């Protein structure tokens, strides 16, 4: 059974790039969200094994969405994926419950390693 992934990013290009990478490597992309609010809603619907979460997004940012998802499911696996890698932001994301932090631009290997690190093969 392929692992289920939810992608959250307001940039269409990033959603398409991540989806192609994940599908080509045997993962099931069960949903896409364009802001944090959609991510929280789609998490409840799809119960994905992993959520990829951008930080800077309209309506609800990725840190707030991570907190909301972790409040509903403390075992949720959220991987932040953002262009901004300042230490304070990494700390804030980890404190919100994110299990890994990927800085864009990313290599395909970095993304796949992160999934294995968080949920195993």
């Amino acid at each position, binding site marked *: 059974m392929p692992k289920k992934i939810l992608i959250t990013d307001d*940039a269409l290009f990033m959603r398409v790039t991540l989806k192609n990478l994940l599908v080509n490597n045997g993962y099931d992309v069960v949903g896409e969200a364009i802001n944090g609010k959609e991510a929280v809603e789609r998490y409840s619907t799809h119960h994905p094994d992993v959520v990829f979460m951008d930080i800077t997004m309209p309506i609800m940012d990725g840190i707030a969405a991570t907190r909301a998802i972790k409040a509903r499911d403390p075992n949720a696996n959220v991987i932040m994926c*953002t262009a901004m890698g*300042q230490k*304070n932001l990494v700390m804030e994301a980890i404190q919100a419950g994110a299990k890994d932090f990927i800085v864009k631009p990313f290599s395909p290997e970095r993304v796949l390693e992160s999934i294995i690190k968080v949920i195993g093969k």
Partner: protein
Amino acid sequence: MKAEYVNPFLLASHSVLEMVLGARPVQGALAAQPNTFTTQPCCVVCGVTGQVQGQVIYGMSLATADNIVGAMLGQPIDSFDALASSALGELGNMISGNALQFLAEAGWICDITPPTVMRGPDVKITTISIPAIVVTMTMDHGELFITIGVQGRK
């Protein structure tokens, strides 16, 4: 303009362009940008807020935009559609976002606004009170003109 504001964007440009496009851009000389200037036909505008604030504008010809987006998508593009716009905006977002990391290491805590992609001839931009510099990055994909107009507010 202080080098400590400019260098992070130059460093980030080199690293992001190399990683995303496989390009080794040749950097031209820094030049003062007039307060009012005519943009390139295609631009990505990123705002910087926080302890450093202003705008960074990544300008290029339409052909260069097509080449860059084609490289990002892994195939030549037929038309500059929503996906192409998103890709180009994301390139500006990644350069600016990575620059913030260098600024943070120097003690400047900032944020960026979502990128805006503009296309059209002879658009005039006036940076009201922040002086700007422009630098050209030359790659196989074409020339990227980076206008950096930011200043510290500590």
